[in-house]
């Protein structure tokens, strides 16, 4: 670049890292591309590449009442889960971020544990607990189960946002005569809102395509989209599933762009 001899170490490092990165990106994006391309097929099989292209399978989604029903269930459960996760997660974060005590650190780890705990094990455990206390399986138990595994995302991003919040601003607010609640409403909440929204978005997405917890905690009437998709695919290799996937990918991309604009999502979920 500036006439210095080529540094072989640096060059080979960049070469290897570049190739690894390329391989990772390819592995991530290729399946998505394949399923999107297949969803536009005009044939009755999931073969790639498709013999021809059409929108027939997207049109078929309009009649797929079972899928629609499952999607609506997944959506409402994800919505309730997100609302609960925000309320519980923000409250927990406020306590964790403000407390210097060791108990706060322990609780932080406890609340985060669903991230590392196998969700299948948790699903089974929750099912046993609910039957032990005599609660029958219902959408309510399903939402509780989802909330437990989705709260960590809200806590993570909210604690991070609170750590960025300059405590002098809170003192400044108090010195101007604002009560703690007023300070929370006008200073704390607006300043950590992007962090909360980022966590809520991830919580929503993670609830929407959760399989392991839903497997155990849904009742027969509550058909969930990811499970319905798997069953359809297993039974009849239905091409509408590719169309559902295509639609979900499109919606996710739109939501990601919106959230990135609103919250700077990518900066908050490292």
């Amino acid at each position: 670049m500036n006439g210095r001899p080529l540094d072989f170490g640096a060059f080979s490092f960049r070469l290897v890292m570049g190739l690894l990165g390329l391989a990772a990106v390819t592995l991530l994006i290729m399946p998505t591309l394949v399923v999107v391309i297949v969803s536009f097929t005009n044939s009755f099989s999931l073969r790639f590449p498709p013999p021809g292209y059409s929108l027939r399978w997207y049109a078929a989604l309009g009649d797929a009442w079972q899928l629609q029903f499952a999607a609506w269930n997944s959506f409402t459960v994800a919505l309730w889960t997100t609302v609960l996760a925000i309320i519980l997660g923000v409250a927990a974060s406020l306590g964790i971020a403000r407390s210097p005590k060791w108990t706060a650190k322990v609780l932080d780890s406890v609340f985060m544990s669903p991230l590392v705990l196998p969700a299948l094990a948790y699903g089974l455990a929750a099912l046993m607990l609910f039957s032990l206390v005599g609660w029958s399986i219902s959408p309510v138990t399903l939402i509780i189960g989802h909330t437990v595994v989705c709260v960590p995302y809200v806590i993570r991003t909210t604690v991070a946002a609170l750590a960025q919040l300059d405590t002098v601003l809170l003192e400044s607010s108090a010195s101007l005569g604002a009560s703690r609640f007023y300070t929370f409403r006008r200073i704390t909440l607006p300043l950590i809102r992007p962090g909360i929204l980022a966590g809520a978005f991830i919580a929503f997405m993670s609830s929407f395509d959760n399989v392991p917890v839903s497997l155990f905690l849904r009742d027969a009437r509550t058909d969930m989209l990811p499970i319905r998709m798997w069953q359809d695919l297993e039974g009849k290799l239905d091409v509408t599933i590719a169309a559902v996937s295509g639609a979900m990918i499109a919606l996710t991309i739109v939501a990601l762009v919106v959230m990135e604009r609103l919250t700077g999502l990518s900066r908050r979920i490292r």
Partner: protein
Amino acid sequence: MWEARTVSGQALILNGITHRYGGSLAVDNVTLDIKGGEMVALLGPSGCGKTTLLRIIAGFIRQSEGAVMVGGNAIDALPPHQRNIGIVFQNYALFPHMSVAENIAYGLAARGETRAAQQNRVREMLDLVKLTPMADRYPRQLSGGQQQRIALARALAMRPSILLLDEPFAALDKNLRLDMQIEIKSIQRLAGTTTIIVTHDQEEALSMADRVAVLSQGKLEQFAPATEVYDAPSSFFVNTFVGASNVLDGVVRGVDGGQAQVRLGDGSDLSAPLPPGIQQNARVKICIRPEHLMFSEGAGDLDGTVALGMPLGSSVVHEVRLGDGTAVKVAGPRDAGAAPLAMGTRVSLRPTHATSVRLYPA
């Protein structure tokens, strides 16, 4: 237009304030009696307890002992938001998600004043700090000096009984600093608010404050008008911390009435007012400010050679090495066209006044 208010600020009394962090004393039995409308500086090096005192007055920490009284009432039981004490923080702490106008209105809104009252007050305060065109800007769009004036306007908008300024000029560059000092002082005069300014910068304290409280290691060393702190420091710490001072070692050789004869390390003698508690043959620290030493035409009290001469615009500073190697600084006005004395010139020095030599126990 901002009308000069005849109501003077409230008196602030700190009565025997002591504060411990764990086992260590951060503030040690400090008593200050500050008059309404007065501007007082808490001056001291970092760790002297001045910031702890500020936080105690604001209510962010509760003192271990003692009482804080505003206008005759103890406020120790009140939480910060009920004290009506305005603070301008070192980094200004403007709310980044609010416009300038919203920042200034914040305290009034928190108290539930009407929108019209808020807007009137915002207009008044912007006028006071001369930033009316900036009302709709956000803090990040303002310069450091502008942010500071908004922080001041925000604190004054709620008509605080006491105003606290925490190292207010530390973040400003040097040229802006003097302008802001003059500005804030005149705004404070207009508003008549009792003001405490916490600073480690002695020039700032001396130029801004009516009275200066010098703190060291949690203890109040001296509380007096700025000029008195400089001219008649009550302790060795104050003498060396406030303003520059030459420090020499000596022994009291003779006492005559109120005067002491002191023998220096190089064998020369100086005469100085005798402070109470110092006896014949006592070892002493001798402080003489550079501007209180002058070159003597004839034989002076101290003989030495010029080691360095530095012209500083309106003044000139020489470093003179005495017989025993001790270096002293001599400052004086510089005549137009005059060059500093050449290195190696033999000179004789004497104090400008007998009273400008000060003795402290060694």
